[in-house]
């Protein structure tokens, strides 16, 4: 009588880790006017004047603020666009 073949028991496990988020940070800038920074934010980040003013005030008060968080590719593009407006932006890994 043939012995039954034993199937090896294989356990699989899928680990899913979310891609790290990146922050687009804008530093305070004593040269560009506040209204100019608001227009730049409205244009680049596609946000309302009220939202743009809120970010601008945060930067003015704190010296810096995160203006956008998300995937790296988009963060790089937004940071470049902000620098095309001559704002002092940089990228930081979130968390």
């Amino acid at each position, binding site marked *: 009588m043939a012995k039954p073949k034993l199937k090896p028991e294989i356990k699989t496990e899928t680990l899913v880790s979310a891609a790290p988020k990146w922050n687009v940070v804008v530093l305070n800038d004593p040269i560009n006017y506040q209204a100019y920074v608001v*227009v730049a934010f409205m244009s680049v980040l596609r946000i309302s004047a009220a939202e743009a003013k809120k970010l601008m005030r945060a930067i003015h008060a704190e010296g810096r603020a995160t203006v956008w968080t998300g995937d790296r590719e988009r963060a790089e593009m937004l940071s470049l666009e902000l620098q095309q*407006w001559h704002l002092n932006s940089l990228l930081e890994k979130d968390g």
Partner: protein
Amino acid sequence: MAELRLSMTQEARTVLSDLLRLIAPAAARVSVNRANVPDNDEEIAGFWVETLTAQASEEARLLAVAFASAKGNPAIIVLPNEAQAHAFLRALSAVRLALRDLVFADVTDAQLESAEDIDDESLPTEKRHALACYACFGLLQQSLISQLCPEAFD
């Protein structure tokens, strides 16, 4: 959107045009040097520098054409659409940044913000002249924003 207009005296146009001719090449260099280009990816860094360099030369060209085309007294610069107005705003910003870095390097930010305080007889004529231009470029920006997006002001 209706076209946007910036007007200035013929004398102001001449003075600002002369300064632009001097500062434009440096403005391009300053705007690229100031950029926080990511240094962890050579390809991306190259793309950024290329993009910012191309933009800087386009800004210099835009300003030169705009001021050269502003005839009459008052001299009027006409910007036909929002995209041109945005480009003009950015170009003026580049020039102000260049003046700040190259001409007013020894002036504090606080002093520059209250520019009238440093516009005194103790400053060399060239620096007072550049300071007046710095303020004028700022006024042109403010005027343009007030037409383009008045809600941007508090």
